[in-house]
């Protein structure tokens, strides 16, 4: 009896040891991201798939709060030498991420580990956004743009229509007819967010800051009082004053979505990442969804919007084998297969040209034309600094200023005054950032 027990325990012990031995062989990579809610299981599944395909690696994803909270947690961790391997960073913080000195440069990693990446296959506009001085600092992942959604069923009832590339004036006209006719309480809504302002400026070819939007060198001033900016705000204010635009709140994506899907508003400007949710709502609600490009002022030549969303960055201070694993993972995440999957699940666009082709061939876009709009808008974007997005450390501060400016305008302040004040503060923020940072920190 005891002999049997001994044999069994030895076998179990051996099994456990083997299991430990093999599991220890897997290089563990920590991945912090900021996508909450239903996307958490999606990301977990994707990581699990990667782990299956590459059993020598183990990627462990964790949700770490909002973009800001994730960044703070990472810096704190990096200072203690416990940085996550991969971090999910939002576009405006790009300059700060570079300056923090805790991240490795994407292109360097790829070269170093001899990985094959077909850069030509990536959609240019996306790469341009994240290329600084010709070098790609991070890996594109969840990229999105702004588009306009509208309730076609409601439009038909009201007897109005909207072209695929509408103008500011179109929106006002259509909006008035809808609200006056009682077809919806409001014409349009979008959360108070800097992103739209940046888009409208970009569409008109206007840089947010000087020095080629921060790409030719650190900027010295902002252009919030430019004509493009003023025009955008004046239009926005007009919509508010006439009761056509309703305020869902600051950064209130969900609320804006709700206002639209509940039919209180006939139109809605948002990120293409919302397309899955809106599509679902239209299917359940039995109304037809249609999307268009972002509206721009009449008579302006469309330059295209900016690429938003986030990217994946790899932190520096890790042993080589971990860096290699991390690089492998981030490249894998933008593999054609993954990017198609991610796109279909969420609405963020597929960042590879091949992916777009495959989706086209499979008839995906015919079935779901709304998923296409952002991509078309993107492909038609001119490659100028304005559409490549501003790159400067004080971007976060300027985001705030853009949003608060509108809140003040709602409170009665004239547009020019609010923007002048915002621009003033923006210049100060830019100066302060330069003062503290000067040059990027050299670590190592």
């Amino acid at each position, binding site marked *: 009896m005891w002999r049997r027990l001994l044999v069994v325990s030895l076998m179990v012990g051996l099994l456990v040891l083997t299991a430990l031995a093999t599991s220890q062989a897997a290089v563990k990579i*920590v991945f912090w991201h*900021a*996508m*909450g*809610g*239903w*996307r*958490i*299981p999606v990301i977990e599944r994707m990581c699990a798939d990667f782990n299956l395909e590459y059993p020598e690696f183990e990627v*462990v994803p*964790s*949700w*770490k*709060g*909002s*973009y800001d*909270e994730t960044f*703070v*947690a990472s810096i*704190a*961790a990096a*200072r*203690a030498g*416990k940085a*996550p391997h991969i971090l999910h960073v939002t576009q405006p913080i790009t300059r700060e991420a570079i300056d923090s000195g805790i991240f490795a440069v994407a292109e360097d990693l790829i070269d170093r580990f001899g990985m094959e990446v077909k850069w030509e296959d990536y959609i240019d506009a996306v790469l341009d956004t994240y290329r600084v001085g010709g070098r790609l600092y991070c890996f594109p992942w969840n990229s*999105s743009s702004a588009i306009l959604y509208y309730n076609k069923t409601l439009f038909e009832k009201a007897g109005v229509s909207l072209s695929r590339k509408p103008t500011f004036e179109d929106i006002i006209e259509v909006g008035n007819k809808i609200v006056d006719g009682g077809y919806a309480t409001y014409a349009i809504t979008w959360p108070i967010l800097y992103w739209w302002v940046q888009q409208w400026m970009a569409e008109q070819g206007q840089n947010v800051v000087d020095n080629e939007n921060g790409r030719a060198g650190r900027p010295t001033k902002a252009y919030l009082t430019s004509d493009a900016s003023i025009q955008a705000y004046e239009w926005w204010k007009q919509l508010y004053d006439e009761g056509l635009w309703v305020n869902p709140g600051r950064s*209130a*994506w*969900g*609320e804006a*979505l*709700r206002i639209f*899907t*509940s*039919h*209180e508003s006939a139109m809605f400007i*948002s*990120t293409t*990442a*919302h397309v*899955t*949710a809106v599509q*679902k*709502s239209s299917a*359940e*609600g039995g109304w037809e969804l249609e999307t268009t490009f972002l509206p721009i002022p009449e008579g302006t030549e469309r330059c295209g919007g900016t690429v938003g*969303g986030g990217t994946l960055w790899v932190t520096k201070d890790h042993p080589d084998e971990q860096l290699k694993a991390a690089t492998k993972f981030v490249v894998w995440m933008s593999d054609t297969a993954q990017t198609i999957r991610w796109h279909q699940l*969420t609405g963020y666009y597929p960042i590879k040209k091949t992916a777009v082709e495959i989706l086209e061939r499979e008839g995906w876009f015919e079935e779901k034309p709304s998923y296409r709009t952002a991509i078309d808008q993107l492909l038609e974007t001119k490659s100028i600094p304005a559409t490549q997005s501003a790159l400067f450390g004080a971007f976060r501060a300027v985001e705030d200023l853009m949003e608060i400016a509108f809140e003040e305008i709602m409170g009665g302040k004239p547009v020019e005054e609010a923007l002048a004040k915002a621009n003033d503060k923006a210049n100060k923020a830019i100066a302060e950032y330069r003062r503290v940072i000067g040059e990027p920190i050299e670590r190592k």
Partner: protein
Amino acid sequence: MALIISALLIMTPVILALIGSTHTTFEANLYPPKITPGSAGITNYIRAWDFGLGRMMLNTIFVAAVVSVGKIVLSLLAALAFVYFDFRFKSLIFVFILITMMFPTPVRIVALYDLVESLKMGDSYLALTAPYLASATGIFLFRQHFRSIPSSLADAARVDGAGPLRFLAYILIPMSMSAIGALAMIQFIYMWNQYLWPLIIISSEEKQLIQLGLRMLMQDLAGEQEWGLAMAGVVISLLPPLFIFILLQGQFRKGYALAEEK
């Protein structure tokens, strides 16, 4: 009765949240708002649970219990010192401890993180509990309470030859049950609602606390805010504090009864 109306009014948002947890996203987005239970039934609850809420709640219960007990003990001892002893620097020390209530957590969080990491306590239950053990609130509360207890009792204890600790154990504590109960409840809930510190200091999934889980469900990052899912999470996470609540509010009765027998 005014009571019924007040109770209903106050409970309304929570009742709405409860109803909301049974809504599908479509139903949650209707206008006029839907106030009848929806068709998602308990699906939202199952989905919310799958985010790992169960484990997180267990962790939080453990951490909250440890902190509550710890705080009560430390505060009782400290309050005993302040009310029944005279010693040098008494007022100074009291102020020294009291003003810690006014140190906002976010301010010290990064430095605290550094400290905890350098003490090799990072990502541990110890890190989740130790920083919370001192309670100015508790000391303040017990001090107020002790001061309203007749001094004749302390005199009687001295006469009987009882030392301070015996006095504490046999007389003060039994007379403070309602205060202890109230403090326990408050501290439990306080710990239950901690978000920022656990977020920063804990990196292992298994040790996460409940508020993080809730945030995961509520986070509205350029995505669909699934109200039903979020509310299901809220309701689930409300149950343990509610339970502790119901348990401890009986303490009031006890405290009340004790005051009668003199």
